[in-house]
């Protein structure tokens, strides 16, 4: 389905001006973060990074957003930001298409738009800050699970909602990765969807174990799913028999890493993601970047980044956490 | 008759109480004294303020002015619980039961016999209920939910509930309105028993034979004001009526003989399992057919099925030669049928809506102009009918629920008379209606019949049946037991058929 986040070829307004890497950063930039949903712990951490970055270039920062993840309420927040004349809008989109009209009005009114975590169609934003390339995420998780189950066995995937775009991209790439000869003995037997709800994730984990008695491992590329599956496994007869890995935050999984339910798992640092998004927005708004492929800029203490094809900047490969390193992080 | 010289102090005294609802003065300056061992009857037209007085004694309304004394002590009844605690048991005019609770719990709610650890003793509860109902000669299953009880059965449960209270003062607001003679007689016996035990009773009825049969004292109210209080033996029905109405009342059953025309309504083999079986009758223009029987005989269910609000399993209904589709009141109305149902509060009226909305409800389309309906038109129409039936109301825009019981009944009559039906079905048309208006209703029925209407009347009042009907169909346990000619029938022949012993009268 090419109608979601997939960057369309030749889409988007061509950069009109030339980038000037030495342009001074505009003073008093107003930066607004618009997460999928406010009060979501993941985005709270990302906001921390954004706030830190904004303080570095002496802008004003705010976070606004709906209390439940829906595209339509994001639209009304974008409209509000447009009304307020915000300079930088950093958004994690609930729907790649639905927010497009509103974002383009915002850009017409002079704002720059940076997407992070979850992209829109390429023609409605200036830059996308990719937390990790999908290939990296998929490869890391496959490596982790393969190591944990000793390179052979049945595995299952516990995803978020069936319509989560990034989840589905990762799952597809994991399947590709597993098709390589090195993983010939590993087979994905099922994909379950816990809808990012605790109870549903519990039930789906149970269902997986029930319908696949020989299951060797579960990969859950979503923080809620991973935490719920870990909690369920740790208290059930399957503890220690079924391996578990995926994407999760160190704080959520510390307990289960220490009690042996989860050997290792991966994630990027959401704070860095927010930090990078804010800096990229400032660079755009000041004319240091236009979003064209090949441009480079420095994002505070994270160092230098290069704009890739379709205006995508990658944060870097995800970090792997295990018993030795999990206590070094706090998010 | 108890000896008046040895009269103990009054059990209850109301002194110059008054009560208004907005602009409507329901009761003004009424005093009333109830003595232990005496039955005090309250008489008055519909809307005279009787039920309002009752509600004050029940703790439902608080008087605006005036005082209440119990055994000589001034008392304020803040709520129904307080009235009950003070030893006052009330039977309200409109029975209000808990449809989902069993009859036993309806009787003994909050007073259920309890056993160990305060748990309800269900066996004792059932036994007490059976005993209480037996006092009234009623055999209802104590475990049966109250939902679906006929109005009469509801009234009986309401009475049993009040009687089961260990009270010193009993207030009874038209307890017999829905009952037939048998039950009413049994209630009278129970009331006498209560008096003998020293209870004081306030008794309200529109039936004079009951009042004069029971009461020691009679108070007459008019327009919310006290008119007179006298010992019953110094009064006659005529004097009471004159004091109530302020004028003489015409004959109660002014039946004018008519020559019946063509058959309009024909019912053949009507059956509904569990309710009635193989009922057939026909009514001709100008004729009044009465359906008689004991309470619960199934009369109401027959007429409901004919009108289409209830389904039936077999049989046909034909109006003016055309078969009527089952289960459609709208079709019945289009064919010229009208049904004044027995339960005015549930079936007859939308209590929350204004009088004018209620009277218009049967003719919404006819009153509309270009599809639009205005309050002005509804009001003009409602005023016409309320004046014709002499309804006492605080304006046609007031909710129907604020009218007195009898006046509500008149609104139901009005909304159906206004449809100008060819066949008028009346289920207990004069329940709760005062004597003056009753005469009026009867006169109207005669008039309508004379103008060629066919009338089917269900009534539990034998005199009404005998006085008004051209023919009487008697039902017993869902089956027709006799068809009697109106003029020739006597109370005995009807009762014989109603109890299942037609004795060759058919």
């Amino acid at each position, binding site marked *: 389905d090419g109608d979601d986040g997939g960057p369309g070829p030749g889409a988007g307004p061509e950069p009109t001006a030339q980038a000037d890497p030495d342009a001074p950063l505009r003073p008093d930039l107003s930066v607004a973060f618009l997460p999928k949903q406010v009060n979501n712990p993941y985005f709270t951490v990302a906001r921390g990074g954004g706030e830190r970055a904004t303080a570095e270039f002496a802008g004003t920062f705010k976070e606004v957003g709906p*209390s439940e993840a829906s595209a339509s309420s994001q639209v009304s927040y974008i409209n509000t930001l447009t009304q307020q004349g915000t300079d930088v809008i950093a958004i994690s989109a609930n729907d790649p298409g639905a927010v497009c009209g509103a974002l383009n009005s915002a850009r017409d009114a002079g704002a720059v738009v940076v997407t992070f975590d979850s992209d829109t169609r390429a023609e409605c934003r200036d830059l996308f800050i990719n937390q990790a390339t999908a290939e990296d995420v998929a490869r890391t998780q496959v490596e982790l699970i393969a190591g944990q189950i000793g390179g052979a066995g049945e595995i299952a995937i516990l995803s978020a909602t069936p319509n989560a775009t990034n989840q589905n991209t990762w799952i597809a790439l994991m399947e590709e990765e597993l098709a390589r000869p090195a993983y010939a003995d590993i087979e994905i037997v099922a*994909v379950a969807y816990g809808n990012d709800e605790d109870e549903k994730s519990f039930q789906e984990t149970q*269902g997986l174990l*029930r319908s696949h008695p020989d299951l060797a491992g579960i990969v859950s590329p979503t923080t809620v799913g991973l*935490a719920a599956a870990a909690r369920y496994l740790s208290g059930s007869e399957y503890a220690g028999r079924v391996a578990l890995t995926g994407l999760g935050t160190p704080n959520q999984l510390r*307990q289960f890493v220490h009690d042996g339910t989860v050997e290792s798992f991966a994630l990027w640092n959401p704070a860095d993601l927010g930090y990078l998004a804010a800096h990229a927005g400032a660079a755009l708004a000041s004319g240091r970047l236009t979003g064209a492929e090949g441009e480079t800029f420095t994002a505070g203490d994270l160092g230098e980044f290069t704009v890739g094809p379709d205006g995508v900047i990658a944060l870097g490969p995800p970090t792997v956490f295990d018993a030795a390193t999990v206590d070094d992080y706090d998010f | 008759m108890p000896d008046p010289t040895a009269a103990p102090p009054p059990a209850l005294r109301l002194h110059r109480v008054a009560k208004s609802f907005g602009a409507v003065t329901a009761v003004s300056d009424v005093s009333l004294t109830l003595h232990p061992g005496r039955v005090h009857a309250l008489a008055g037209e519909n809307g005279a303020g009787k039920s309002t007085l009752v509600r004050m004694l029940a703790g439902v309304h608080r008087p605006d002015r005036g005082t209440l004394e119990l055994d000589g002590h001034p008392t304020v009844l803040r709520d129904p619980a307080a009235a009950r605690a003070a030893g006052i048991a009330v039977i309200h005019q409109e029975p209000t039961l*808990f449809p989902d609770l069993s009859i036993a719990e309806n009787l003994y709610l909050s007073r*259920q016999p309890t056993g160990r650890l305060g748990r309800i003793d269900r066996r004792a509860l059932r036994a007490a209920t059976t005993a209480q109902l037996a006092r009234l000669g009623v055999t209802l299953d104590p475990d049966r939910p109250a939902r679906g009880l006929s109005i009469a059965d509801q009234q009986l449960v309401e009475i049993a509930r009040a009687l089961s209270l260990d009270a010193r003062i009993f207030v009874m607001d038209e307890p017999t309105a829905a009952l037939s003679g048998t039950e009413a007689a049994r209630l009278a016996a129970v009331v006498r028993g209560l008096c003998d035990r020293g209870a004081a009773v306030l008794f309200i009825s529109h039936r004079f034979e009951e009042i004069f049969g029971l009461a020691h004292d009679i108070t007459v109210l008019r327009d919310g004001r006290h008119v007179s209080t006298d010992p019953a033996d110094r009064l006659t029905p005529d004097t009471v009526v004159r004091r109530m109405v302020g004028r003489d009342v015409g004959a109660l059953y002014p039946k004018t003989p008519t020559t019946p025309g063509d058959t309009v309504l024909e019912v053949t083999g009507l059956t509904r399992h569990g309710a009635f079986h193989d009922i057939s009758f026909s009514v001709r223009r100008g004729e009044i057919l009465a359906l008689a029987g004991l309470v619960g005989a199934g009369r109401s269910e027959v007429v409901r099925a004919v009108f289409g609000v209830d389904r039936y399993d077999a049989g046909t209904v034909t109006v003016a030669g055309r078969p009527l589709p089952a289960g459609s009141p709208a079709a019945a109305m289009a064919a010229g049928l009208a049904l004044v149902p027995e339960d005015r509060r549930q079936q007859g009226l939308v209590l929350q809506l204004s009088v004018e909305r209620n009277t218009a409800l049967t003719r919404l389309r006819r009153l509309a102009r270009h599809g639009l309906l205005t309050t002005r038109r509804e009001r003009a129409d409602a005023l016409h009918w309320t004046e014709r039936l002499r309804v006492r109301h605080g304006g046609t825009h007031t909710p129907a629920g604020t009218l007195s019981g009898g006046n509500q009944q008149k609104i139901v009559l009005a909304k159906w008379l206004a449809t100008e039906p060819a066949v008028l079905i009346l289920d207990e048309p004069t329940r709760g209606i005062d004597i003056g208006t009753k005469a009026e209703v009867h006169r109207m029925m005669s008039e309508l019949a004379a103008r060629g209407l066919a009338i089917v009347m269900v009534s539990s009042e034998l005199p009404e049946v005998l006085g008004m009907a051209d023919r009487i169909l008697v039902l017993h346990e869902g089956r027709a037991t006799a068809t009697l000619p109106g003029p020739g029938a006597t109370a005995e022949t009807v009762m014989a058929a109603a109890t299942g012993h037609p004795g060759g009268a058919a």
Partner: protein
Amino acid sequence: MTRAHPRELGVLAALLLLIAGTAAANPRFLSAQSVRDLLLSAAILTVLAAGQTVVVLTRNIDLSVGSVLGLAAFGTADLLATHPGTPLPLAALAGITIGALCGALNGALISYGGVPALVITLGTLYVLRGTAHSWAAGRQINAADLPRPFLDLGTATVLGVPLLALLATAVVLAVALWLHSYRSGRELYAIGSEPAAAARAGVPAGRRVRTAFLLSGSLAGLAGVLYAARYGTVDATAGQGMELQVVAAVVVGGVAIFGGSGSVTGAALGALLLTCIGSSLAVLRVDPFWQQAVVGALILAAIGLDRLLTTRLAARAARTAPEVSRAG
């Protein structure tokens, strides 16, 4: 109420049908661990349904339970995380107290204001959820922040039966006993059956309604504590959207939505049925895109079946009524 309970029979039939069907397709659905998981999963919903039943019987409704659960869950977890030394009973009491306060607020607004519960609790649903969010301010409390013994409560078993399930059963039995055998419990039915009659009979309706909401709130608080113990991860969204599930459980369990009839055992069966539907779909590996549609269809089927059984039984009772013999 002393007769057989046809309303519960309907749900029970639906439940057995579902279990039999699933077990036929996958026998492991009846394994010890599986049954344990099922009971565990149903426990929280059951506790909520018990409270909701009491409220619905009085012709009211409590839509705020999901938000109350969230607030209590977060409160308890926050307390335990910031004061790790807090004795567990005290922490549980704190959660229940939060719930009780919310319930008392609902009850007071409804009974003193004389206003419809649906509107008030829809309002407090928003208000309490907003409060939980501003309290949590995006924080999440994780398993590592919670004391081990507290987390163990969520998984502990007594003689192989999950502790949480036992607790839920105890709650249901206690409420059932109260509703069935105590005067005040019967008064709840009376209030819901016909408020006007209850007023005339001198039933202290206001007090009873307040009690019902207090109970519902407290049980939602308890459910919040159980939630925190079971899932180990709590943020301000805990229990979001739960209200519709609870109402569905109660209604499926045969409690009349307009009050006056139904039983808490029926509601508990309803909760079990709903949970079972979720588990069955997971075990049967029903296409994820179909799952929600099937849940909806099964809810409809359950209430339909219940209605069918009820009317059948009523019809049979009417036909065998003593007064009138049946037509030949």
